[in-house]
């Protein structure tokens, strides 16, 4: 009995299950990718505080302040000078007032803004620089502050 010639054998593996797995992996990586890196600057090494609580019900109306180890405010990966930082905070306060106005929230002069300031200060930032930015926020009626820390040290 003649054996079939090998070059006539057409082998077609079923690629569909493989494609399914690849798409599932891709979906996983897309979902867990951090697309907020511009806002949550990874250069800032947060201090460690085990008693802080996990983030629950994250504020929708928020202003994220990233402060580097020299105490400068980081905005769009640029370190601002002291005057620029205060101008930025004032600008953000004006925006918060406009947003509140557009949402139908009437804010009288001096009334606290509904925006939560998320303070992400580097662990080695000098206190005086961080405190200066906090006071600048308070001067324009930001009153809700949320200090960020880590549960365990990162290196």
């Amino acid at each position, binding site marked *: 009995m003649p054996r079939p010639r090998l070059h006539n054998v057409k082998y077609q593996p079923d690629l569909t299950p493989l494609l399914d797995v690849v798409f599932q992996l891709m979906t996983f990586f897309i979902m867990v990718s951090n697309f907020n890196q511009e806002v949550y600057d990874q250069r800032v090494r947060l201090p460690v505080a085990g008693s802080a*609580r996990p983030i629950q019900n994250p504020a929708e109306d928020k202003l994220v302040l990233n402060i580097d180890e020299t105490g400068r405010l980081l905005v769009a990966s640029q370190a601002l000078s002291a005057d620029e930082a205060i101008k930025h905070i004032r600008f953000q306060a004006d925006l918060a007032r406009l947003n509140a106005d557009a949402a139908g929230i009437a804010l009288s002069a001096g009334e606290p803004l509904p925006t939560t300031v998320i303070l992400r200060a580097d662990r080695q930032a000098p206190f005086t620089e961080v405190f200066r930015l906090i006071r600048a926020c308070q001067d324009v009626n930001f009153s809700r502050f949320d200090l*960020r820390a880590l549960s365990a040290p990162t290196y």
Partner: protein
Amino acid sequence: MFRPRQSTEIEVPLTPMLDVAFQLLTFFILTFKPAPMELQFDLNLLPTTPQTQPEPEPPPEDSPSDEPPAIRSFQVSLLSDSTGGLTGIELEELRFDDIAGLREQVKGLLEDPDYAFDQALIRADPDLHWEHLVAVLNMFSDLGMSKVNFTELR
């Protein structure tokens, strides 16, 4: 006359799609950097009015009063050297070298029914690294004291 049936088999080429999918997967694997889990402290800081001095004097032990305990805040000063390290902690007249000593003292004060502290005012040296202040905030939070305010030590 019937036309003979032609068995049409449509083959979708999956190989190019798989190539693209693998390239995307490689990109996401290489750029994947899980963000560390962040925690939060909620603070409602007092407005930027001049800080009033707290009332550190406890009631004398030999003259018990029937009045309800006064609402007090106590003042903690964090001292630092020029490098930003924590060199000492002062609680009223007491001085501690580290946070563990402060913790024991504060814990004893909070357990004392004669005192009703509702706020801690932390005064920090301007050069102090932020992590030391957060460590003290962490200690107060751990002891169940949520009303904490801080200001600059002059």
